[in-house]
């Protein structure tokens, strides 16, 4: 250790070059998943889960107290909502029957449904460098594997990046590494939705395509990764970028305050890390 202490600058320079080589090697292998990563995730799972449980309890107690103050007004509102929902339920059932009939007429293929596993977000990235990562309390023992798509009730969230025994890391769609084949719901115009740190951009949209602010973007399912038709976000701005159009997309899911997600147990061989 004395040797290291006396030659710190020299060793730092050597480490710098080692780091460059290691980075190249990792870029080529394109994976951050290894045995030790799994151990680190498992070791940190228990304290993370403990903090999650305690903070969840505290938040719930506070929320219950706040809710109590508005309960009477909320009760009246809920009764009104039930009335509306009953009407909507009836209309929806009618539409479903009609939909089934049309599908038979058009000989539609059913979109395959996949089993899902729900998970709680128990942590986030500890660094500014790739802060668009969250940690969930499900791992390989729940059938999770690297690359599985992750969504919430509101839309696409991201993909599984690293898997531990009891917890996993999710790479959010807003991370610059993330890319999803998607199209505009209204006009079926296609493009690639890439992460841009907190936001997304839809790129490679052909010039003169019919796309406007407010359009909903959904996954195309073409890359064989995300199931088709899951909502990604809403177009907030459009600009010309070279010979293509580029649209800013605001994710539908509030990724900053994500609490629960569902992991779609759809295996594939796509590796995520850049």
């Amino acid at each position: 250790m004395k040797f290291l202490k006396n030659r710190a600058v020299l060793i730092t320079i050597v480490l710098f070059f080692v780091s460059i080589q290691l980075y190249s090697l990792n870029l080529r292998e394109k994976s951050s998943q290894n045995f030790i990563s799994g151990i680190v995730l498992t070791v940190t799972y228990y304290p993370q889960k403990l903090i999650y449980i305690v903070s969840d309890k505290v938040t719930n107690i506070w929320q219950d107290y706040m809710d109590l103050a508005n309960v009477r007004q909320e009760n009246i509102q809920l009764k009104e909502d039930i009335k509306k929902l009953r009407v909507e339920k009836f209309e929806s059932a009618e539409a479903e029957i009609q939909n089934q009939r049309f599908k038979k007429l058009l000989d539609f293929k059913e979109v395959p449904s996949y089993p899902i596993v729900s998970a709680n977000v128990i942590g986030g990235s500890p660094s500014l460098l790739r802060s668009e990562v969250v940690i969930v309390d499900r791992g390989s023992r729940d059938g999770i594997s690297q690359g599985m798509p992750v969504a919430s009730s509101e839309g696409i969230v991201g993909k599984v990046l690293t898997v531990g025994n009891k917890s996993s890391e999710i790479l959010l769609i807003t991370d610059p590494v993330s890319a999803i084949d998607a199209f505009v719901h209204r006009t079926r115009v296609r493009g690639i939705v890439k992460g841009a740190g907190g936001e997304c951009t839809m790129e490679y949209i052909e010039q003169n395509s019919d796309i406007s602010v407010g359009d909903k973007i959904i996954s195309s399912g073409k890359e064989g990764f995300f199931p088709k038709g899951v909502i990604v976000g809403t177009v907030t701005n459009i600009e010309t970028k070279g010979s293509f159009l580029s649209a800013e997309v605001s994710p539908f899911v509030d990724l900053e305050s994500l609490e629960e997600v569902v992991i779609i147990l759809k295996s594939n061989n796509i590796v995520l890390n850049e």
Partner: protein
Amino acid sequence: MNKYLSIIFLVLLSVIFITIQTTLLSPHNLGSYYPDLNLILIVFLAIFSEIRGGFFLALGNGYMMDVLSGNLPGTFAISRLSAYLLVRSGSNHVYLRKALVQGLVIFLATIFTWIFILTIIKIKKGDSADITAQSILIQGIVNALVGVPIFWMIHRINARFQK
């Protein structure tokens, strides 16, 4: 025996700090205004700790950062190890008992690790990883402000084990 207790204490502290940094103080929620407890601990190890395993603790702490932030293995591990070695080497020549100097060392270690990482990314990928100089400076200041009282606290607890 005390030496082993000290190592166990520092290992436990590493896990506690990284857990807090991934939950309550995650930059996913706080942006640039989060204290990098992991780096603060590494600087502490370099300045004060007399245990032999400090080198490996620094490496392990960096590796935990790599895994939990989803970065390629080595990104933080090697940069933090380098910061550990430089601070440890420099600690012989600088009087580090004053809070102001400790704060300055934490600040400089923060800047050094970011320059180290961003230079490698720039060389290998050609882009600048979307982290501004402003957010690095903010983090350096936050680390310095939070780091000094943490140093005082760990130093007091750790001193009991090292007696």
